[in-house]
């Protein structure tokens, strides 16, 4: 992929991912030999600029979490580079990696599951301090309180256990823990998916506040497209281990280019009966193919409403089709190469877009 940071040319990328692959081997047979791999992430490249929020959306199982985890090297990536703050995380030796950890942190999907039920809030938030500082108890306590203030948790709760909190509060604990070491980059892996609607907003607001105050950079993973629209600056749409489209927020939501992005956006219900009554959804047929056995050619060719012969053969490259917009689709290639794509495809595309608008 070309240099990904065109719109924010002023800002330099903090995170830069190139050709990231994460394959989980499958063993089978009498001798338990490797017979294949779950290609959870299969060649993903993108940049995240300093202070920016990159949204990552896609269907369940398309590899979003895997990207997030491989980025922080919680998984050993199969291939590719992950440069964060100038160092390639993917090839760092364990010691250096450990020293690097404070600058990149993660907030997890399930606030219940990501907190050890047998540790107090203070211990949970203080754990990174235990690991990376040699401060004395007082200093640590002071920092823990400061963090609790920052995320809006009452200091009185310091000695309580996670099960005594509501979901939103728990997620705050998780965020406080991620903030403890003053990270610059945080991967938020569906931080609101497990929360009630009325609480989701609180957490998202908190994340935004913190970003404003501390200049954080987020990779915001979610399948809630409305929320991503709210929080992200740019959005990457993933399908089956690959990025289908990577565009600035407004551009994407106004006019998705990749057929999958289009289908995805059309499927999101809007809290407006009038709109809903008239809206035409693109209903995708069939199921997502298994990442262990992705189709030949374009990953989306099995479900794509605009599939062409070439899609079943050649894998499309992620290419910049408009300034700042990257799409991996043969339709785009035709658009740019031949000026006009085949009339049929073009017409249909217009029809559908017209109705979405």
């Amino acid at each position: 992929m070309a240099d990904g940071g065109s719109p924010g040319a002023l800002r330099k990328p903090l995170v830069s991912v190139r050709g990231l692959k994460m394959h989980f081997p499958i063993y089978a047979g009498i001798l338990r030999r490797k017979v294949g791999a779950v290609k959870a992430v299969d060649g993903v490249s993108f940049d995240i600029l300093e202070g920016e929020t990159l949204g990552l959306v896609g269907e369940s199982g398309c590899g979003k979490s895997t990207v997030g985890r491989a980025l922080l090297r919680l998984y050993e990536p199969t291939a590719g580079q992950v440069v964060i703050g100038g160092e390639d995380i993917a090839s760092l030796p364990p010691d250096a990696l450990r020293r690097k950890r404070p600058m990149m942190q993660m907030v997890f999907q399930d606030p219940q599951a990501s907190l050890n039920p047998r540790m107090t809030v203070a211990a949970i938030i203080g754990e990174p301090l235990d690991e990376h500082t040699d401060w004395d108890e007082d200093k640590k306590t002071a920092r823990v309180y400061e963090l609790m203030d920052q995320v809006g948790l009452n200091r009185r709760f310091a000695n309580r256990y996670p099960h005594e909190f509501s979901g939103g509060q728990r997620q705050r604990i998780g965020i406080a823990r991620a903030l403890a070491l003053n990270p610059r980059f945080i991967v938020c892996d569906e931080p609101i998916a497990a929360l009630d609607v009325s609480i989701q907003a609180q957490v998202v607001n908190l994340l935004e506040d913190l970003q404003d105050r501390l200049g954080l950079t987020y990779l915001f993973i979610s399948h809630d497209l409305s929320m991503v629209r709210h929080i992200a600056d740019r959005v990457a749409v993933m399908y089956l281990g690959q990025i289908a489209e990577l565009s600035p927020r407004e551009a994407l939501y106004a006019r998705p280019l990749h057929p999958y992005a289009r289908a995805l956006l059309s499927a999101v219900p809007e809290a407006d009966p009038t709109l809903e009554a008239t809206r035409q959804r693109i209903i995708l047929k069939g199921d997502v193919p298994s990442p262990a056995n992705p189709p030949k050619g374009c990953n989306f060719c099995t479900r794509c409403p605009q599939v062409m012969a070439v899609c079943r053969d050649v894998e499309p490259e992620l290419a910049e089709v408009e300034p700042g917009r990257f799409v991996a689709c043969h339709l785009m290639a035709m658009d740019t190469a031949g000026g006009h794509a085949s009339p049929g495809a073009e017409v249909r595309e217009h029809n559908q877009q017209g109705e979405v608008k």
Partner: protein
Amino acid sequence: MTETAVQIEKVRGPWGDVWAQFRKHKGAMTALFLLGGLAVFCLIGPLVWRIDPNFIESDTVKMFKMRNQGPSLAHPLGTDQLGRDMLARMMFGGRISLAVGTVAMLVAIFIGTTVGVMAGFFRRIDGLLMRLTDLFLALPLLPLLLVMIFLFRDTVAGILGPRLGTFLLIVMAIGLTSWMQAARVVRGEVLALKEREFVLAARSIGTPSRRIITRHILPNVLSPVLVAATLGIAAAIITESVLSFLGLGFPPDFPTWGRLLYDGIAEIRTYPERVIWPGLAISLTVLSVNYIGDGLRDALDPRIRGR
């Protein structure tokens, strides 16, 4: 900080909840009292009832009068075939049986937890450790116990004296042959825990494996371990009595419940109470420990506790 003085309220902690739930389990509470009673009987009893459990009247004529007596004020549980006081023997024997149960359980739990955690956490040694567990499961217990007692008795007895030595040996032998179940349970639990997000969270912080184990894994396998522990006590007490039954236990002048029971069975026709007392003591202990384990299982399961 200005507000460090904020009063940090004392919380019940998770143990408070466990206790609250445990108290609701009638069977477990009864069992706890029963076991407490038995423990007091064995530990404090001898301080009150000061007859030497091995005292034999050396004057033969007197000794013959004292043999095989039924319950009386002087000997509330009667006397045995050599005129020894059964109450004193029961108390003394109880000390050893309870101690064997507890210590053997600790040994088994320690090994089981270590193996289970290692196998569950480190994929690379999992296969090896599990084969080891299979191996131990498949080994015949009796020859194994015999060999261990044979190989190490003298060395251990030389260092610790014959009584403590035998005690240690029996306890180790029982422990070493009964850790496998715990290891399997713990491994299963660890395999699941390892995938929980808080372990991932710790990893993302940069917590090294050994601290992940001590800080995050171990406290969370506590409940199956505790339950295994109570069952382990029960099993160890029974194993000790079977060892006595097979003549492998403690020295003969060293009463334990198991040995008293074994000796009593030979006399079951003539003096059935000799079987009843130790039999009852063993059964009651094991029964209460089992009930306590049951209560603990409920109390420690947050799903049940939440209800």
